[in-house]
């Protein structure tokens, strides 16, 4: 039986089921990049295990000519290359969809479905015949299935060949065997199946000069461009690639051509306590310094984040969020550190948070983080997540204004100090309640003891209630003043919307796609994406404008909802949490279903 398949060009989703550590990531990336170069909006999501080799791993590619590239969970095609997961993989294909699998071994009869099309290709067998080396046989199987997809989906062969040329420049033998493997899959598919499939690709011109980049790379670039010189970190998934990329860019751009010295210092710390300590020490001395971490690291950094907050030292923390609590699921995504970051540390503390939605904003907000940290002399935490950080996204080309200069905030130099009768660290605040600081090594007149213990506005130790409170109250006002400086919310308003939808970070694409889909059903919703904390006034205005607001976020407890309730004057009944926390990137259909469900109640 040949079930019906709807034919659609440049609008479908495929899922590739692999075993991790076999080289599939490289083949999957190749496919995604080729589609990107064909000018078609595309996304790739890597759903991988916390493991090095031998466990199931998946990669999803979605193409959509209208630019909807949030995760799609309705798969048109499954490339089933992992016999361990055949059962669930085959079940996930939509009715009328396709399953491409390695038929070197027979497929268990119980796995067959008569409402999907099976495309058997003996990849292992063919690769074993062509390649001698065991490692090559494993690796080339991946390139072979890529070849089969080139044929069945009409991926442009010249583009794929060009990519192989670039990847294996100067490694002719590798390039040739990859090309050979590609052809094995391609030829077999052409010969045995009707190519292309009803859903396939056609070149477009939707990508212009956009780039394909992951958020961690873009974050690292932002840190380079912001002028960060000291970076301290402790290895942790999914933040490690921030520092890997920072190191790579520093080696490229920061080696002084004259002196051959490194205009940077990256320190792999003994733990996250040390990493944030080093950042605080370097910032105290006037360097732009940062650390990158994930939830478990934030937990450890709590102690010293409070020190930096109270003693008013800039610090930039990149939190690439993963699934908690505890170790949680290190390779899965979530937005569950919001509350622990907003109020990190004991005592009354509040921090500045930025919420980028994609790699382009990771670049922009990373730079902003340093400016805000120095202007407000306080920690700034940029809250990325695994989906943004580790997946490749198609984003507008990153731009840079060469007239940018770092906002170093209020720092007194020797001449400034000379004009003052006496310097007191926590006095003489400006309209944003920021008092000028001095850096060590400048002048004895600016010297004081930085301390995490109770201090008065002069910087002296105190245990006197009024003196202590005076400083603590100023800190609260300083934090509130930052609301006008963090990136404002992004809005999308429609006529006469009864309800609003509020979200943050990487939910952006899925939520906006869902709003479009709901509009087609006659449900009109206003949209607001929160980009920073403390909240701008416009956030409260938006919330009050609507009968109620769906707050979409990726955690169990509605942490953004809580934060909005605590930190704005909005009534709690106006907030309707819409929560997803299984660990995979959000898809529009999940949001549509959840909002519909709530509206029906």
């Amino acid at each position, binding site marked *: 039986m040949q079930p019906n398949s709807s034919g659609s060009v440049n609008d479908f989703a495929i899922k590739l089921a692999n075993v991790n550590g076999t080289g599939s990531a490289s083949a999957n990336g190749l496919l995604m990049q080729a589609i990107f170069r064909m000018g078609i909006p595309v996304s790739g999501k890597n759903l991988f295990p916390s493991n090095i080799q031998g466990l199931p791993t998946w990669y999803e590619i979605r193409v959509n000519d209208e630019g909807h590239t949030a995760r799609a969970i309705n798969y048109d095609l499954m490339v089933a290359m992992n016999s361990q997961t055949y059962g669930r993989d085959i079940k996930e294909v939509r009715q009328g969809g396709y399953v491409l699998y390695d038929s070197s071994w027979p497929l268990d009869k119980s796995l067959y479905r008569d409402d999907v099309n099976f495309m058997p290709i003996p990849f292992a067998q063919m690769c074993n015949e062509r390649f001698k080396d065991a490692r090559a046989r494993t690796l080339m199987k991946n390139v072979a299935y890529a070849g089969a997809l080139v044929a069945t989906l009409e991926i442009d062969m010249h583009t794929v060949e060009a990519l192989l040329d670039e990847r294996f420049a100067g490694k002719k033998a590798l390039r040739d065997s990859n090309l050979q493997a590609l052809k094995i899959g391609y030829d077999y598919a052409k010969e045995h199946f009707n190519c292309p499939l009803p859903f396939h690709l056609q070149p477009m011109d939707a990508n212009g000069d956009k780039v394909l980049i992951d958020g961690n790379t873009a974050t690292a670039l932002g840190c380079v461009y912001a002028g960060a010189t000291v970076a301290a970190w402790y290895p942790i998934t999914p933040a490690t690639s921030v520092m890997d990329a920072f190191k790579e860019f520093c080696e490229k751009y920061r080696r002084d051509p004259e002196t051959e010295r*490194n205009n940077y210092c990256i320190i792999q710390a003994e733990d996250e306590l*040390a990493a944030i*300590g080093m950042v*605080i*020490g370097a910032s105290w*001395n006037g360097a732009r310094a940062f650390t990158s971490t994930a939830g478990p690291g934030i937990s450890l950094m709590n102690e010293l984040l409070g020190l930096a907050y109270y003693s008013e030292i800039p610090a930039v923390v990149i939190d690439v969020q993963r699934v908690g609590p505890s170790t949680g699921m290190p390779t899965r995504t979530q937005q569950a550190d919001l509350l622990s970051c907003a109020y990190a540390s004991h005592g009354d503390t509040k921090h500045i948070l930025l919420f980028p939605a994609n790699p382009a904003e990771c670049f922009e907000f990373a730079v902003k983080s340093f400016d805000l940290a120095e202007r407000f002399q306080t920690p700034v935490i940029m809250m990325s997540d695994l989906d943004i950080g580790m997946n490749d996204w198609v984003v507008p080309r990153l731009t840079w204004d060469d007239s940018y200069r770092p906002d170093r905030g209020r720092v007194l130099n020797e001449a400034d100090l000379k004009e003052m009768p006496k310097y007191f660290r926590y006095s003489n605040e400006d309209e944003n309640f920021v008092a000028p600081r001095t850096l060590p*090594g400048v*002048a004895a007149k600016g010297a004081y*003891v*930085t301390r995490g213990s109770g201090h008065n506005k002069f910087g002296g130790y105190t245990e006197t209630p009024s003196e202590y409170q005076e400083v603590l109250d100023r800190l609260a006002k300083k934090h509130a003043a930052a609301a006008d400086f963090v990136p404002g919310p992004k809005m999308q308003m429609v006529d006469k919307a009864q309800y609003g939808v509020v979200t943050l970070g990487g939910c952006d694409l899925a939520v906006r796609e869902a709003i479009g889909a709901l509009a087609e059903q006659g449900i009109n919703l206003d949209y607001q994406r929160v980009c920073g904390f403390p909240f701008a006034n416009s956030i409260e205005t938006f919330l009050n404008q609507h009968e109620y607001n769906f707050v979409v976020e990726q955690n169990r407890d509605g942490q953004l909802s809580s934060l909005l309730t605590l930190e704005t004057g909005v009534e709690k009944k106006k907030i309707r949490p819409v929560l997803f926390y299984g660990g995979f990137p959000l898809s529009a259909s999940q949001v549509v279903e959840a909002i519909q469900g709530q509206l029906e109640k």
Partner: protein
Amino acid sequence: MPSIAKPIATHPSLQRNELGLTIRDYEGSMSTLCAGCGHDSVTAAVVRALWEMSLQPHMLAKMSGIGCSSKTPAYFVNGAHGFNSAHGRMPTITTGAAAANRELTYIGVSGDGDSLSIGIGHMCHAIRRNVKMVYLIENNGVYGLTKGQFSASADVGSKSKRGEANRMSPIDPVMLALSIGATFVARSFSGDKEQLVPILKAAFAHRGLALVDVVSPCVTFNDHEGSTKSYLYTRRHEARATESDYVPKATEILAELNGDGVTSVTMHDGSVLRFRTVPAGYDPTDRQRVMAYLQERQAKGEVVTGVLYLDETVPDLHEMNNTPEIPLTEVAYEKLCPGAEALNKLQEEYR
């Protein structure tokens, strides 16, 4: 950390250093520690060493964690920035500070609680990174601020003020440091300023991290009979391994250093540390033998003091990271930002 402003009393007869400053210019606020606290003697030795070295006060950075010892940076060099940070974290903050500005002179003042319990990992890793700093441990075997609990350096059998005996084996910062590659290890006694001042000066001249463990009795909680960190015990059991004499760079006396029993080591900054080793054959540059010797004497209940080990050949944090000769904080932003054109070009790789 309460402190009391100290009246500045100078006398015309006070000696001046190369900068024209008197020792008063290196003092800080009045100490609020208990009368007779060993830490105050250490502070006095730090003041003297820095004055003798003619260090610009504002070029010093005084780092500390939490505890009685960590209060002391407020009691010396008012003209220098201080950082009284969090318990055990001083080495991390100093590492970051040193990475950012290599021109400052760093002194980290810590105690046995700060460095041998809560911050022991940080201390070890600062040693491994060879951060250029003087790492001072004011070691009294007891938690003073929280009123008398044993610290990790308390010896087996040592008795608390209440008469309770410690049964857990102590952590000796000197042996620990030696075992993880420390490049300068010294021990002294707060009651012996004659020995401590030259040790501190040598420590400041060292290429990397100089660990100085100072037995500094706690008069309130650990100076009784049965304590092994008391004035009396230390005086009775101290055994000097080396007598050191620090010779500043400017003084050319190399020719004099070839006498019997004298070892001289040229420090990284060109100054010279001259040792007179007390036991015959003690070689402060032979790590294995130093460790063996210290263990042997320790077994006999002796507290060996002096500059115990020294290696000027190991690169410090900055050398290992190939950073510029100027502080990273002084590298112009134009040199740090690759600019719009480079960003555009780079993005061709992300197509």
